[in-house]
Structures are given as structure tokens and as C-alpha cells.
């Protein structure tokens, strides 16, 4: 197409007044029912903002908690409804003018995200752990995020009993983004969704009540690196767009497959230029691998996990991974299967160094939250092994693993919020010595989570690990399985270390106390344990769900 013709594209719209283009204009069709989950969450989030504006301070907390939980529950109900309606399997299709794909993976992941965020939100709402200041219960968020730590304004805010109830709408926005992320069917939606769920997270990281400096530092690091990575993602998108002339997955896939035959000679140098495709693909992958925290894009993880308020960490660790892996799956299975031969070796390498790197560095960690961060990196590696399988089995195994893993993570971080001393949460491992003697129950629960992380049989961790390894082996990635096994062995070492610490070492005199939480956190932990054990003992039903959901629509 010649330059003049391109020019006419907008001269026509602007200059000549004729009805023709107006008739050409076709109103977009939006399947609102099928987007219901997202819409509900976003809607309520907006309402939440209004609540912040208009509802008196006293009532805000309860209103927000109520709204949030209701929203998530409703959205989940909607997802279930859609799934029941067969949108996961037979009626799976592309919705919203090709922007969103409603199919098995989408619904499964949305369901997982919604449930995990629900239990995570319980920990957000927990207000019994911190000693009540000035007779008012407080949660783990700053009285007034804007006030400088240690300043008079902060003291005043605390005295006034302010609380940052904005976190709830923020969570909802973030969740909304996460819901769209794995469903995104074109790169633009992908990008926007990414930002939508990232920005609130940046903020949430910054609003811890205790250790605010660290919290803010975490936020800065997360934000800058996140922005950096999304820039890469965006440039990659740009290149892919240049390659295919479109950002829709289907279109790009077609070009990759070469099913688009006629290429305008004028565009020969860009259209279908594999250099663009490869570089662009690689950069998009970078963006996504950053979010899943794969080596070498993982370095933000420990710092952010450590600095962020623990409830946020739990939410982030669980939900972000789910969403990001969903998007990664879709990208690799829908857009890039055509060049599996190009990205597979690279992903192999990434998976291997992720598994080993995460496990090895975790050995010498001394802070429980950093430890869990590194373990999450190692787990990302395991999941990647499943992703690389590129078989339907691979998809479902990854879905299952994500489901299993997210609940364990939320539960584990919820337990971390309970162990406290004067300075807030006692996250240094040495403080955990002898916890098993002081409060056997909590220690036992945490041990269950650790064993699940370690992939000991009869826990969900084992089922998940077995599923992905099986898929990988089936998909001809036996090597990854071996590496995975080795790194699990290494990983086992530090999980065991924590258990030893909790049970076999004498409690320190100035050791931390275990706060008795409100039903909220109890529910979170209980759900975590329940899911861990159920998926460990009788995973069949959920495996079925996952395998039914294991097909992408294109």
C-alpha cells in the first residue's frame, strides 16, 4: 500500500463529509455476560473508590471489606456460571471483538485468582494481630501512607486511628487486571491488563504499617523494575505488530504459520520478517518472565516479597504468578507454537537456571519471607518445566500446579503474619527457633505448608510436582525432570532446616509470641491447609477440571 493511500485513511475521515464511512463504522459487540467476572470486580472497585470519598471513616473498613468479599464471591460465582454454561469447553470462543478469549484456561485461572485473592483479602482485613493503638484495632497497613515514617503527621494519623482502607479497591483493580491478563487475546489487552494489575501492586507494596522504609524501598524497586520490564514488553509488542501487522494473537499466529500467503511486496522488509518476530517474541517473553520471577528476571522478587506488607506479599506471590503463567501459556501455545523450535531451547535454559538458582540461593537465606521468595522462584522453574512440555497435558498440569501452589503460598504467608515480636512480624529465622514447642499447632500448620512446598507426598505440592514432571517427561523434556528432581532435593534441604528450627531447637527466652488471629486469618490458613491436603490425597476431581480446561481457543 502506498504512502498516499495510507494518508487517505485519515484525510478521508476528516475532510470529505460523506455518510459512507459512517455506515462503514460497525459498532463493537461486547459479550457482557461473559466478561461479567471482570466487570463485577472493576465495578465494585470503582464503588470502593467512591466509598473512600463519601462514606464516613468509621464505616469505611467494614464497607470495603464487605464490598470486596462480595465482589470477589460474585465474580467467582459468575466464573462458575460461565464454566457450567460450557464456555470453558464447547462454547469457548473469542469475545469482545477478539480482545478476550473465553475458554477453559481463562475460566480456570480466573477462578483460581478469585479464590486466592478472596482468602488473601481476609488477611488484608485482619486487625487483631497488631496491638491495638489508642484503643483502635489496626491492620498491617500504614495509618496514612503519605505521612513520613516517624513524623508527627504519622503519629497524628495513628492517634486519629486512620487506616488505609484504599487497599481494598486497589486489590480489586489489581485482581481485575489479573483476570484479564490470562484471558487477553491480543497484545494490547495483554499490556494494558499487565499495567492494570501491576500499578495497584506497586502501591500496595508501599503501605506497610511497620518497617515502612523497607516497604517503600520495595515499592520503588518493584515499580522501577516493573516499568522497565513493561517497556521491554511493549517494545516487543511493537515489533510483533510490525511483523504481523496486527496485535491479535490469531493474526500473528497465522503469519507465523505462514497461512497468510500474499504479502505486499512494499512491506516485505517488515511483514513476516523473522528477525522482528524473534526479537519481539523474546522481548515479550522477558516481560512475562519478569512477572513470573524467572531467573535472570527474578531479582526483584526477594526484596519486594520481604519489604511488602506480608498480606500483600501473599496475594502478590499467589495471584500474580497465576495470572502471569496464564498469559505465558497462552502466548506460547497460541501465538508461538509455530516457532517452538526457536523458543524451546531458550526456555529450557531459563527453566533449568530458575529451578537450580532459586533452590541454591535459598539455602543460605535467613529471613523467612526471602526464603519463601526464593522458593517461589524455584517453583516458577518447576512450572516452566510443565509449560515447556507443549502438550495439552502440559497445560492442564500447569493449571493444576498453579491452583495448588497459590493456596499453599497464601496460607504460608498468612502464618508468617502470626509470628510477631515487639517490632511487628518476626521474620528472621533465628526468631522461629523452638516455635514448635511454644505453639505446636501453628508450627505444625507451617510445617505442612513447607512439606507441600518441598513436594512431599500426600500434600498438594507433590501432586502438582508429579503432574508437571509427568507432563514434561511425556513432552520429551526428561532432562528437565532430572534437573527438577535434583533441585527439589536441594530445596528440601532448606525447608527441612526451617522445620528443624521450629521443632528441634530449644525456644529462645526472648522469642516471638504467636498472636491469636481473628476468624479471618484463621479461615485463610484453614483453607490453605484444607486445599493442601485435599489436593494431596484426592486430587482427581481437580485434575479433571484442569484437563477439561486444558484447551486454548484460537
Amino acid at each position: 500500500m502506498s504512502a498516499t493511500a495510507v494518508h487517505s485513511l485519515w484525510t478521508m475521515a476528516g475532510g470529505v463529509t460523506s455518510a459512507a464511512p459512517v455506515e462503514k463504522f460497525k459498532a463493537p459487540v461486547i459479550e457482557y455476560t461473559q466478561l461479567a467476572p471482570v466487570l463485577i470486580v472493576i465495578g465494585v472497585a470503582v464503588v470502593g473508590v467512591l466509598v473512600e470519598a463519601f462514606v464516613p471513616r468509621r464505616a469505611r473498613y467494614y464497607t470495603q471489606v464487605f464490598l470486596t468479599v462480595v465482589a470477589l464471591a460474585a465474580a467467582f460465582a459468575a466464573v462458575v456460571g460461565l464454566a457450567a454454561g460450557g464456555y470453558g469447553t464447547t462454547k469457548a470462543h473469542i469475545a469482545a471483538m477478539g480482545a478476550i478469549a473465553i475458554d477453559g484456561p481463562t475460566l480456570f485461572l480466573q477462578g483460581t485468582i478469585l479464590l486466592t485473592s478472596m482468602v488473601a483479602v481476609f488477611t488484608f482485613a485482619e486487625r487483631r494481630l497488631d496491638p491495638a493503638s489508642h484503643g483502635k484495632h489496626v491492620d498491617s497497613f500504614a495509618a496514612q501512607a503519605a505521612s513520613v515514617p516517624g513524623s508527627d503527621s504519622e503519629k497524628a494519623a495513628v492517634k486519629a486511628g486512620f487506616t488505609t482502607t484504599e487497599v481494598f479497591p486497589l486489590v480489586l483493580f489489581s485482581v481485575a487486571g489479573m483476570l484479564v491478563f490470562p484471558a487477553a487475546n491480543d497484545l494490547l489487552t495483554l499490556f494494558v491488563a499487565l499495567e492494570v494489575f501491576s500499578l495497584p501492586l506497586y502501591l500496595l507494596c508501599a503501605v506497610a504499617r511497620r518497617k515502612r522504609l523497607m516497604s517503600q524501598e520495595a515499592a520503588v524497586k518493584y515499580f522501577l523494575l516493573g516499568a522497565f520490564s513493561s517497556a521491554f514488553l511493549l517494545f516487543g509488542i511493537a515489533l510483533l505488530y510490525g511483523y504481523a501487522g496486527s496485535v491479535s494473537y490469531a493474526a500473528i499466529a497465522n503469519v507465523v504459520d505462514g497461512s497468510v500467503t500474499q504479502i505486499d511486496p512494499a512491506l516485505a522488509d517488515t511483514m513476516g520478517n523473522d528477525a522482528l518476530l524473534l526479537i519481539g517474541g523474546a522481548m515479550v517473553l522477558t516481560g512475562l518472565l519478569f512477572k513470573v520471577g524467572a531467573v535472570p528476571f527474578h531479582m526483584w522478587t526477594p526484596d519486594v516479597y520481604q519489604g511488602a506488607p506480608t498480606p500483600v506479599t501473599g496475594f502478590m506471590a499467589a495471584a500474580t504468578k497465576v495470572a502471569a503463567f496464564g498469559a505465558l501459556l497462552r502466548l506460547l501455545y497460541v501465538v508461538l507454537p509455530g516457532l517452538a523450535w526457536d523458543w524451546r531451547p531458550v526456555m529450557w535454559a531459563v527453566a533449568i537456571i530458575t529451578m537450580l538458582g532459586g533452590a541454591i540461593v535459598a539455602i543460605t537465606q535467613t529471613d523467612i519471607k526471602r526464603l519463601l521468595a526464593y522458593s517461589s522462584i524455584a517453583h516458577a522453574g518447576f512450572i516452566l518445566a510443565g509449560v515447556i512440555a507443549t502438550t495439552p497435558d502440559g497445560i492442564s498440569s500447569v493449571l493444576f500446579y498453579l491452583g495448588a501452589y497459590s493456596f499453599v503460598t497464601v496460607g504460608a504467608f498468612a502464618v508468617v503474619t502470626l509470628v510477631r515480636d515487639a517490632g511487628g512480624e518476626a521474620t528472621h529465622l533465628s526468631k522461629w527457633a523452638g516455635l514448635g514447642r511454644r505453639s505446636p499447632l501453628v508450627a505444625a500448620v507451617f510445617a505442612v505448608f513447607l512439606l507441600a512446598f518441598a513436594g512431599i507426598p500426600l500434600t498438594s505440592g507433590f501432586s502438582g510436582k508429579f503432574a508437571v514432571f509427568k507432563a514434561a517427561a511425556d513432552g520429551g523434556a526428561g532432562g528437565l525432570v532430572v534437573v527438577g528432581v535434583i533441585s527439589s532435593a536441594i530445596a528440601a534441604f532448606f525447608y527441612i532446616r526451617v522445620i528443624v528450627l521450629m521443632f528441634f531447637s530449644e525456644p529462645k527466652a526472648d522469642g516471638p509470641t504467636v498472636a491469636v488471629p481473628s476468624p479471618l486469618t484463621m479461615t485463610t490458613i484453614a483453607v490453605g491447609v484444607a486445599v493442601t491436603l485435599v489436593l494431596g490425597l484426592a486430587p482427581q476431581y481437580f485434575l479433571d477440571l484442569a484437563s477439561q480446561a486444558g484447551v486454548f481457543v484460537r
Partner: protein
Amino acid sequence: MSFPLLTATAALPAIGAVATAAVPAARRTTAKWLALVFSLATLVLAGIALARFEPGGDRYQLTESHAWIKDFGVRYELGVDGIGVALMALTALLIPFVILAGWHDADPSPSSQQSSSRGGPNETKPYRWRPTQGFFALILMVEAMVILSFEATDVFLFYILFEAMLIPMYFLIGGFGDRAHTGSDENAAAQRSYAAVKFLLYNLVGGLIMLAAVIGLYVVAGTFSLSEIAEARASGSLSMATSTERWLFLGFFFAFAVKAPLWPLHTWLPNAMGEATSPVAVLITAVVDKVGTFAMLRFCLQLFPEASKWATPVIVVLALISIVYGALLAVGQRDIKRLIAYASISHFGFIVLGIFAMTSQGQSGATLYMVNHGISTAALMLVAGFLITRRGSRLIADYGGVQKVAPILAGTFLIGGLATLSLPGLAPFVSEFLVLVGAFSAYPAAGIIATTGIVLAALYVLVLYQRTMTGPVKAEVQGMADLKVRELVVVLPLIALLLFLGVYPKPLTEIVNPAVQHTMSDVQKKDPQPEVEAAK
């Protein structure tokens, strides 16, 4: 659908474990009795299973099969052959004794109570740590898992238990150390958790490598059910490439060799047995480790016959090394329990040798050996435990002339020792001789080398007995009490059993023989024929 006997046998102790754990902190004795009752009930069930088992019947009996995890090709399949039922019975038999012997091992020791009263502000609230309940609950939990693993005829199910049983064992070792330790409490605690971690990591690594093999097996076979795999083999629909089979075999064998333990993967055992209380040590060597040797017989040979034959020479050599090496190190030990541990290593060498001699005598011998070694080690170790708790030291050098002050203790100890050196007339002799004959008829050299084991065994047992029991009475030993009723109740039945099985092992062999013949046909091995058919 008949009564699921096997499930019940495994479920009962599991329930018992939960019940015991639920007993309130103050009611320690209740917990103990509860655990004992449950273990006895389990013994009864196991006895019924043993009675219901027909030696002549199908290979696997009392079978149960339910769908479990379809996607993994996993079924909940149970069934016992002669070997399984024998070991199951052994487990059920030993646990009550273990519980009785450990009756006071988990009472909160004065030292720990001091530390709890010493401790920080939060010690004002009642001491919530309930060691006693935990101890017995964990023992029952181990029993449940071990029994189930002897019954599992589904590789995956077995694997899960094989791994899962590590956790309770781990807590038993690390959480309830032997009070009779050398050095300070902290030092002892450190050694203890080192031992526990070592135990767990060794076995976990073994298990994880096995996991890779298990997955590989699934990729090859598409199922985990022994019976289905056997059918597939028979029908020829399943044929493994030689290399694949070998790799898978190695994956499995490694895990079992760690558990067994076979040289050079044995070093975790002495630490574990040394640091654990002697009942737990018995649990390790007499019960849990048997799963490893059992699995070699059940899975390695049955799933990978060709690879097993391929690996036999190396394994036989390793077994021989274990026999001699273990015995020599036992001679060199200064710690009673470590000595017994190394003796066990030597005995496990015999068991493995018998299994991989791949002759009827060898394998029957190996199976009997598992049972007899269980009983004899239990007897020796428990008496040693009684001795150690009296004097509060594990060092041989701290004893002397005990038999003068506590003749019954010394006598039972001697009998345990004689069983360990497999004196004819006591059960271990039968199995050891069978193993030797089996090994000799397949590999004469191996047979002869293994025979040196009997001399070394005599050496370490008699040296131990001489140093501890004979000679002038040591001052610290003066006035040591002889065995109490509870302790006699533990030891005497075991000794009686040793004598009975030594004189009349027929009931056992009759159960075991058919199973062994099945295994022999699995590996398509015939016994070497005697040179002269003098029999007729």
C-alpha cells in the same frame, strides 16, 4: 465386596495415631495405653490376615482395588503375597513391643521442664508441647504407613508411602533423642537434629531420584498397577528398551539401597540409630528399613527383571562389602547403639545378597532374614536400651560386670547377641544359612566371602558382651536393677519367638516359598542344579 482387611490393618493404627495425638496434655498414661491397645488390635488384624492367607493360592491375595487418581494412572490397589504378609505381620508384631519399651522415653524429662520453667515471659502460659502423645502417635503413624507400603501393589501408592513415612520417622528421631547422650544437652540436641536431617535428606534424595524413575515408568508403561504391568509384559504389549529399563531400575534401586541401607549409602543409619531412643532405633532398622529390601524384591526384580540380572554382579559386590565392612566397623565402635547399627548394615548386606543371588534358597533366606533380623535386632537393641537407660551412657567403656548385678538382663542381652551372630537353634541362623547357600550356589566366591561375616559377627557380639557384662563390676554399675516386669514382657516373647522360628521355621517358609517361586519366574531364573542328583 468383602471386608477390606488390608485397609483396616493399615487404617487402625492411623486412627490410633489421631486418637493418641488428641489426648489432652495432662493425660499421658491414657495416651500410652491407647496407643498400646491400638497396636495390639492391629496385631490381631494382621494375625487374621496371616490366617486368611492361603500359601497355595493366588499370587496376591486379600486384594482391594479402587480408582484413585485416574490422570496419573494410579489406583488404590492392595494385595499381599507371602513376603508382604510376613513382613506386615512382623511390623504389627513389633510395634506393641516398641511402644512398651518406649513407655517412659517420651515423658517430659526433668531437664526440659527446667528449661521450660526457665524460659521467657510466654512460659507463664501452660506448656503446650505434648511430647508423649506425639511420640506414640508418630509410632502408630509409621506403623500404618509401613504396613500399607507392604500391601501396596501399585507403584505410585507405594512410592507415596515410601516417601511419606520419612516425615514421622524424622520427627521421631529428631524430636525424641536418647537421654543417655555424651556431652552437654545443646551438643546432644545438635547431634540429634544432625542425625534426623541426615536421615531425611539421604532418604529424600533417594526418593526423589526414584520419583524420576517412577515418572519414567509411567511414560513407558502408562500404568502403575503391578498386575497390569505384568499382563502387559506377558502379552508383549509392554517392552522396555534395554537402556530405559536399566535407567529406571537404577532409579528405583538407588532409593531402596539408601533405605536398606547398602554400602556406601549407609552412613545415615549409625547416626540415626545412635541418636534416637532405642525403640525408635528398632523402628528404623527392624521395620522401616525392611521396606527398602522388600521393595528390591517386590519392585526391582518384578518390574525390571532384565536390568536386575544385568546389575546383579555389581550389587552382589556391594552387598559383600556391606557385610564385611559393616561387621568390621561394628568391631571398631565405642558406642553400643552405633555398634548394633553397623551390625545391621552387615545384616542388610546379607539380605541384599540373598535377594540378588536369584536362587530360591537365597530369596527365601532373604525374606526370612528380614523377619528374623527384625526380631533379633529388636531383642538386642531393646535390651541394650534398658541397659543404657539404667546407666545413662551409650559408651561400652562405661560398663563392666553387669551380669553379676543384673544376670537376667545380661542373659537376655547374650541371647540377643547370639541371635545376632546367628547361632544355630535361633531364628537368624536359618535365614543366614539359606542366604549363604543360595549365594554360594550362584556365586561360590561370594558365598565364601560372606561366610567370613559369621566370624566377624561372633567377634563384635562377644567383644561387646565381654566388655559390658563380664569382668569385675564397675563402680557405676553397682546396684543396677535387673529387668522389671514391663521389660521382661517386652523381651521374653521376642526371645521365645527367636527360639521357635529357629527350631521350627516351617510355618514361615511355607508362606514365603510360593511368593519366592513367583519372583523367580519373574526374573526367569532357575536354581543351579546340583552336580550329582544324589537326592534320589
